């Protein structure tokens, strides 16, 4: 199972205040733990929303709005993607993050193919039965 651990923005992160050297070091150690345990897939920090844009979809129309955005608690400052065996394991890893001072982490499961019922995932490939190419790329069948 894959989970995204989302770090909520704070007034400091939105103001572009960089974290202290101490926090950066602790964060490095934490990331290393995740990597060494083989569960870390991706991670990144996000610039403040003042550098971001929002795009709204309405029919053919696309409306682009420049940041910053209000409602700090709805904004994100960074994320990790981890691959673990259970939600509890994701929570356990999330709890070990070196945060303090009211920071909030949100843990969300990432959709995987098996989460989609067949009627939502159309059988776009099923018709293409030129499957003798299995014989062609013998190994490809496994890849």
């Amino acid at each position, binding site marked *: 199972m894959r989970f995204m651990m989302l770090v909520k923005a704070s007034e400091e992160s939105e103001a572009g205040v960089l974290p202290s050297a101490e926090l950066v070091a602790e964060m490095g150690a934490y990331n290393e733990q995740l*990597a*060494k*345990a*083989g*569960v870390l*897939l*991706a991670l990144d920090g996000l610039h403040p929303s003042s550098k971001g844009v929002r795009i709204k979809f309405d029919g053919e129309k696309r409306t682009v709005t420049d940041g910053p955005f209000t409602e700090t608690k709805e904004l994100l400052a960074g994320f990790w*993607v981890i*691959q*673990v*065996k*259970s939600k*509890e*394991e994701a*929570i*356990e*890893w999330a709890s070990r993050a070196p945060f303090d001072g009211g920071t909030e982490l949100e843990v969300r499961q990432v959709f*995987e*193919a*098996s989460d989609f019922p*067949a009627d939502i*995932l*159309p*059988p*776009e*490939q*099923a018709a*293409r*039965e*030129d*499957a*003798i*190419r*299995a*014989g*062609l*790329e*013998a*190994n*490809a*069948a*496994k*890849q």
Partner: protein
Amino acid sequence: MTASDTHRTIEAVWRIESARLIAGLVRIVRDIGLAEELAQDALVAALEQWPESGVPRNPGAWLMATAKHRAIDLIRRQQRLERKIEELGHELETEQPAPELDAVLEEDDIDDDLLRLVFTACHPVLSTDARVALTLRLLGGLTTKEIARAYLVPEATVAQRIVRAKKTLAEAHVPFEVPRGEELADRLSSVLEVIYLVFNEGYSATAGDDWMRPALCEEALRLGRVLAGLAPEEPEVHGLVGLMEIQASRSRARTGPTGEPVLLLDQDRGRWDYVLIGRGLAALERAERITRAHGSAPGPYTLQAAIAACHARARTPEETNWAGIAALYEQLAGVTPSPVVELNRAVALAMAYGPATGLALADRLADEPALKAYHLLPGVRGDLLAKLGRFEEAREEFERAASLTRNGRERTLLLRRAEACARGEAS
């Protein structure tokens, strides 16, 4: 937090900490079976105490401290017993001096311990089945029940395999160490083989299967990534990780809605997992960089990862670098000669340089005993012959392939192509 919440948390902590815990304990007690027992005792203590006291701030350290106390008690009791026996005038032959407890407890090189545990669990003195079971159990923290479900065998069989494996290691006096020099390469290939076996066991299962089997893929990937962290200078470790990441990146695209397999060239590339592809390409690059730095030739996993990468880099099937793939198969054949590798090379050659070139190589494989009952050989020959307009020969090959395959769906397709050839059409 309710008691059952706490139990689930403990289970999660166990998954995260058990391998490190067991690895640290083996160094103290020098016995995998005993180390696992001590770790389990600590787990039982947590199950008893944490629902009351709450989960400690650093659960891993708590488990390690609890287990170490028990280990020390045990060793002290043993030493007292040995002294008693000596006092009684018996001669005592100890093969190994009791470890200097304090010194052992001072050290805290968990990474080395884990690496030693990997090499011990995958020791060639054990059967392949035993290596797989022990690795999943000790490194993956999987229960006997989970391993049994994944391998579709009775739980008692797995339990017995693990017990026997631990006994075999003890009886063979397998040292708890990372081998050096020439032995390292041999032993490492056993470790990589076990991880890749676990991966393939999960990967060959279809999506609709019991969740435990696809979970094996994730477990193998995790073990591979752990190993890459522990042995960062070994190119083949990165090669294997790269191969597994790229293969896993296709899991969403390789089965259709009813669970039928979708072949690589027919897959919707938009459904590939580009996070995993990125990781796979990075791992491959690392493997190739280290190989170059050592001035050596790339190993089989690195080459297979490079082939997988050629497909991963192509945005459409038409953009596939078939000449590159053919060259990689040639290199692979040099490292691990096999008729199946040659057959794949024939396909790549056909894609790169036309069906006649591929057919020339496929024809040379016709008398290969290993491919006598392998339906892919006539399947490939049939396809190449059809492309060359030699429909009658192609039809015979397709019919032969159909008679050899054990897969009903595939047989239908092969017979359909045979009929097409009979009508003088390529497909």
